[in-house]
């Protein structure tokens, strides 16, 4: 009985830190590139970066509320953001990341306006609304996002929340 209780206590002690603070937390493979590309630089000349591994720095301005499968990283000086899309369940961004500085790394890519590349139209629609409107998901802005000719994102392999 004592052994079982000891095991339970050890388990709880080991799980609690994971549930606690998210500061300086590494997600997935983290960030390996030393220098970041400006988000506005990516969006100004996307063809130059498509298919390439990039690192971006910014502030987390939106997170997938249900699955944590994407986050929007915004350059606070340029008012532009890019979606960091990760594989469902492999990396889970917490809602507590909102407003925090972060770095993310992955492959820059273009997705179609309907955003169905990953087979999750609902998430893509929400994220496109965020990208076009900077996070204000009212119906008109979502419609405007749908009309956009192209949407870019980073297929994220890792991130660090500061």
């Amino acid at each position, binding site marked *: 009985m004592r052994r*079982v209780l000891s095991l339970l206590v050890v*388990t709880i002690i*080991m*799980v609690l830190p*994971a*549930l606690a603070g998210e500061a300086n937390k590494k997600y997935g493979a983290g960030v390996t590139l030393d220098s970041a590309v400006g988000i506005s630089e990516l969006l100004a000349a996307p063809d130059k970066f498509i298919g390439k591994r990039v690192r971006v720095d910014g*502030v987390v*301005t939106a997170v997938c*509320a*249900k*699955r*944590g499968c994407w986050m*929007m990283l*915004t350059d*606070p000086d340029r*008012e*532009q*953001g890019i979606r960091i899309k990760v594989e469902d*369940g492999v990396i*889970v961004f*917490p*809602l*507590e990341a*909102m*407003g*925090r*500085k972060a770095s993310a790394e992955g492959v820059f890519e273009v997705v179609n306006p309907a955003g169905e590349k990953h087979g999750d139209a609902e998430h893509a629609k929400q994220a496109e609304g965020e990208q*076009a*409107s*900077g*996070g*204000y998901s009212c119906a008109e802005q979502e419609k405007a996002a749908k009309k956009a000719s192209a949407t870019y994102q980073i297929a994220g392999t890792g991130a660090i929340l500061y």
Partner: protein
Amino acid sequence: MRLRRLVVAVHRDVGYFFAGLTVLYAVSGVAVNHMADWNPSYRLQKTRHEVGLVADGTAAEQGREVARRLGIEAEPMSAVRVGPGLLKVFFEDRTLTVSLPGGELEDERRARRYFLYEVNFLHLNKGKGWWTWFADVYAIGLAALALTGLFIIPGRKGLSGRGKWLVAAGLLAPLLYLVLSR
């Protein structure tokens, strides 16, 4: 007979060890099954307000001013202009999305769902690390429970009796679903 005693012992002790976690995972399983209808880990509440014209300034200044007008005493964690005429002001547990300069805003408050956040954290393996391995051991334990459970009772009520029909019925449900959902 000796083999059956071993089967019973394994089933009993593995069952005892994983009983708590199985109940937690069952609760989380129901919660995340209905993710399309609700957020199983967070309680989100959105309200709309108008705080009047917001004067020009840095994002931080405007964020503080909006928060003051809403009567929020906490200092914003950060404030970022995320697009033309759109400001987001972040606090630990809420986000204000403000339309500039008009001052119409959406106030989203978030709170972790008590107990459910924790069980979903474990069940969905959000923390990764060593929990991944523990969850693997748990999965193997579940398989052991299922397999040993088949051979605990001998005779008419055992696998050779009605047990085989119940096992077949249990397998039929997923097979039927797979066929019908094609």
